[in-house]
Structure formats: structure tokens, C-alpha cells
């Protein structure tokens, strides 16, 4: 457990990592990564019980699945700063021969990643499977997952949501990043999702609202509250409101930075807004 200041510093540093990684290769997805920074920092440093060494089976620890794999920059940064792999490796993001592929994969053996994701809508099914394995193994630890809101347009999610309730997968906490943006525009214009929380509820889930997913304290409280709701016969969902691009003013509240890298000047502006806190990679 870190103190609050340390977590705040980590959030700022991860944001620096994200924009630097994406800028370095002039590709990648900064918007959703920046919006989910508080979530990742809190989950990995305050919430999940993890073993010091990574192994694929993850027996005896909490495990996490990223379904919206395009926000790999925030995932990689938080994994590296948690010690899963050397920080310098962030330099290799999206480069040839790297373990840090554009979208996360197990294929190159990067510690911390348990399934490939990027083709959307598949992560919840995988998380459910891992949660079922934990039950079969009588492992009391939890499975966490993160999903984009736009990703919920993929029908497989609703198959999974239906299954999880029917099979009482109550050791799963699935968080939906409700930033309201997707590649072609606002979700409610591209393909309206409506009341996401209500949809999960009527499918039989226990649902929590996280009003400000860019507020560290609120994120921590919501994740802790979600943990208390596990083991009660229902899968748990957190509908987390975030701002895409949070922390970099010109990237906020727009889908424009979903999958676009900043130029040199924009990078400097972004970094100035997030002054170095724990040392750049």
C-alpha cells in the first residue's frame, strides 16, 4: 500500500509514460489510456493481491484482464512500474522485436499479460473462464477486468454478461470505462449504449456507479466497495465515468485522441501539464 501522495505521483508519471510512448512511435492510443490511469494505478497498487513473480495460472492471487487492449500504454506503464518487467522496456513499445506489442499479447511472454486483446468484446468471456477456474481450484482470489464502453457494442459481451449472472460468477469485478467516446465519435451518436448500469442490472449483475473515475479517492472507494460485494451470488460491475484524455487538456472530452499520437510540440505541452514525479523511463 502506498500513501496518497505516492499514488498521485504515480498517476502523473504514468501519464507521462503514456504520451511519451505513443509519441515515440507516432502511433498508439493515448485517449483511453489517460482516462483510465487512476483506475490502473489504484487497482495494481491498492486493490489487487498479487504474487511477486508472474505466472500464467495466477493461482493464489488476484488477476486482471484488459479487454479493450488498445489502451496498452497505460497497462504497460503500470505493469512496468509495478515491477513486472524492466521500466526501460517501455522504450520498445510498438517497435520490431518487442514484447510490448501494439495490443497486449501473451505471445512474446510479457509478464502481467494473460491473454491477447485488441479485437474487441472478448475479454469478459475470458475473465469469466478464469473466475470459474478459480472456483474449481477453490482459490478465493478475485478476477478483475476492464472494458471500453464502445466495446459493449460487440454482441459477445452480452452473451458473457448473461452467462456470468446465470452461473453466479461472483468472484468477478468487471469495470466499464464509460468515457462516452469511440473512434467515430461519441458513443451515443455512433451506436447509443443507453443506461449501461441498468442493462447490467437487468441481466442480473450487482452494479456500482463510479461518478468520477479520474478521482483517485473515488476509484479506491469504488473498487473496495466492489470487493465487499463479491461472493454474494452475483457478478459485480463498476460503471466508471471517466474523461477520455484526462490530464492533458487538449486531449480531453473528445474522441479525436482515441488513436492519435501527439507531435513534438503537443508532447511538450502534455508533459508540462504532468511534471516529472518519479523519474521518466
Amino acid at each position, binding site marked *: 500500500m502506498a500513501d496518497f501522495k505516492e499514488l498521485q505521483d504515480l498517476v502523473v508519471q504514468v501519464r507521462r509514460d503514456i504520451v511519451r510512448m505513443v509519441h515515440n512511435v507516432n502511433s498508439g492510443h493515448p485517449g483511453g489510456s489517460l482516462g483510465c490511469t487512476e483506475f490502473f494505478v489504484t487497482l495494481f497498487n491498492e486493490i489487487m493481491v498479487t504474487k511477486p513473480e508472474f505466472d500464467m495460472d495466477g493461482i493464489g492471487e488476484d488477476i486482471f484482464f484488459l479487454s479493450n487492449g488498445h489502451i496498452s500504454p497505460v497497462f504497460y506503464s503500470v505493469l512496468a512500474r509495478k515491477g513486472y518487467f524492466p521500466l526501460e522496456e517501455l522504450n520498445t513499445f510498438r517497435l520490431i522485436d518487442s514484447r510490448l506489442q501494439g495490443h497486449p*499479447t501473451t505471445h512474446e511472454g510479457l509478464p502481467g499479460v494473460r491473454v491477447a486483446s485488441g479485437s474487441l468484446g*472478448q475479454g469478459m*468471456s475470458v475473465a*469469466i473462464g*478464469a473466475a*470459474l477456474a478459480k472456483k474449481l481450484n477453490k482459490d478465493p482470489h478475485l478476477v478483475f477486468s476492464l472494458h471500453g464502453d464502445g466495446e459493449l457494442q460487440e454482441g459477445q459481451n452480452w452473451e*458473457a454478461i448473461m452467462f456470468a449472472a446465470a452461473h453466479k460468477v461472483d468472484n468477478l469485478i468487471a469495470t466499464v470505462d464509460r468515457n462516452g467516446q469511440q473512434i467515430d465519435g461519441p458513443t451515443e451518436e455512433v451506436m447509443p449504449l443507453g443506461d449501461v448500469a441498468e442493462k447490467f442490472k437487468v441481466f442480473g449483475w450487482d452494479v456500482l456507479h463510479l461518478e468520477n473515475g479520474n478521482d483517485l479517492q473515488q476509484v479506491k472507494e469504488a473498487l473496495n466497495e466492489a470487493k465487499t460485494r463479491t461472493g454474494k451470488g452475483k457478478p459485480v460491475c463498476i460503471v466508471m465515468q471517466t474523461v477520455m484524455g484526462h490530464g492533458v487538456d487538449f486531449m480531453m472530452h473528445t474522441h479525436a485522441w482515441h488513436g492519435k499520437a501527439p507531435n513534438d510540440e503537443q508532447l511538450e505541452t502534455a508533459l508540462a501539464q504532468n511534471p516529472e514525479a518519479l523519474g521518466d523511463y
Partner: protein
Amino acid sequence: MTIYTDQGKQDTRSGFGAGMTELGRTNPNVVALCADLVGSLKIQTFIDENPERFFQVGIAEANMMGIAAGLTIGGKIPFATTFANFATGRVYDQIRQSIAYSDKNVKICASHAGVTLGEDGATHQILEDIGLMKMLPGMTVINPCDFNQTKAATIAIAEHHGPVYLRFGRPKVPNFTLVDQKFEIGKALMLNEGTDVSIIATGHLVWQALLAAENLENQGISCEVLNIHTIKPLDEAAVLASVQKTGCVVTAEEHNYLGGLGESISRTLTTNYPAPQEFVATQDTFGESGTPDQLMEKYGLNTKAIEAAVLNVLKRK
């Protein structure tokens, strides 16, 4: 000519079910999933004996593949079961990303492959599944020929680490291989030694190949018959040894000639030992309703078709 005896017709899917029953008793890590086709997949005994190790997913194959991938994380060996059409084409990207690219130890077990599921027609008769699955890096593709071999293959794939596509069928067909045989993934089986032509067959067509070989033997044509139950990885050494001896080959499969066993054999021969080849396979077409025998006849997948192909290929030697 080695003579094989039909021990009594049985469906290969029941061989799968029998294998699952045995795995349920012997391997506590084996779990099963099904998308509303328990009766068709013949896994009721596994479910009755291991209810906590079975997951009914409903009519949701994409979700089933993802859950199967997740179950491997924690050491389970999931057998995801449905019809071949829904186990491959419908969920190709789920298999590609969550299973194959993620190197998950999932066994995709597919019944009702090919035209011989019969009357349900082309919506259910996939003839492209071998191609789809063999193109995925790391995927093992197995198509056993009868009840006994399907049972043995089912048991064997639980011991193999990595994704496997196990393909079998609906109709009752002759059961002629050994009871309790040892199944070696990737090992071709020599069923009959011959000198004039190699008949290389997989699945339901293996028995048809044996009948054809017997008929041709009576006409003085010596046929070597190879059973390729594992299409990938292909036993290239066995294929080459046979064709180097006979000089020509007929491949036989209940699948489109595009993407099937025949093409894998072609690639092997082209790069190592070019030789005339004829394809007994469907000719880039969909199937239709009918009885299995009618369909095998109409789509050129039976003994008669193999014999004709042999006579053709011999002319090209």
C-alpha cells in the same frame, strides 16, 4: 491386401463421448463446455459423473470459446463442444485471438463436420473447417476415422499442451480400427502397403479408401493406404516415403479441396517430390439436404469416386 473388419457401425461423435467419459474419470483437470448440443455431442455421461466440471453456455459459441480460454488460466483443460460449423467459422476471431494467438490449452471438439450430417443441409454442413483451423499458427488439427480412433484421439489430446481442433461426425460408420489403440498425434498410419498409387485419406473417407483399395487390388492395381488422422502437424515423412515409392497420390477427405488435407499434401509434394495428385473432395461448393450416402455419392466422396481418381492419376504417372 490387409483386410479390415467392420466391428459394427458407430458414430464418431459417440467415440468422442466415450473418450470424454474416460477423461472425466481419469483427469480431474478436464472440463467440458457445450453450446446447447449436449445430446448431439454425446457427453451426458461426462456431465452426470462430473456436474461441477461442465458448463452449459447456451447458444453462445463466441462466449464459449472465450470462457474456455479463461479456464486454462488456472490449469484446467477445457473441451469446448458444438457442431463444426459453429465451432470454427462462427467464432474464428475468438479462436484466433483468445485461443491460438494466446496459446491457450483449449480443445475445440466439433461434431457434425462435413456433408454427412445429412438432412439439416448446407447451413450446418461446414466443408471449410479444416482449412480455417490449419491456417492458425500453433493449432493442431485432427480428423479421426472411426469410433475407436475418435475415442483414442479424445484421450490423447488432453495430454497434449496447446490448442487442438478435433473434428468428427454424425453418421454411423464402420468401426474398424483397434479398440483401446494408442493415438499418436502427428503420426500417419499405414493401413495397407502398395506399390502403384498412394491413397491418403482422413476421417470418414479412410474406410471408403480401404474399400476402393480392395476393389482396385482385384483389378491388379496395388494401392497403399495411409490414414492421416492428424492434418496438422502433417506427417510429411510418411507421405513422402509413400509417394516416393508409388509415384502418384489420391487424397480423400470430406472437405472442400481448397484448404483441406489435399492441399497440405500438395504443398509437401511440390516442395519435396512433385508427383501427380487427384483430389477426392468437394469442389468448392456448399452441401445440401439428403441422406449421408446420397450426399457422399452426389459430391463424389465415396469408394466409387476414389477408384475413379486412382484410375485418372495412374494415367498421369
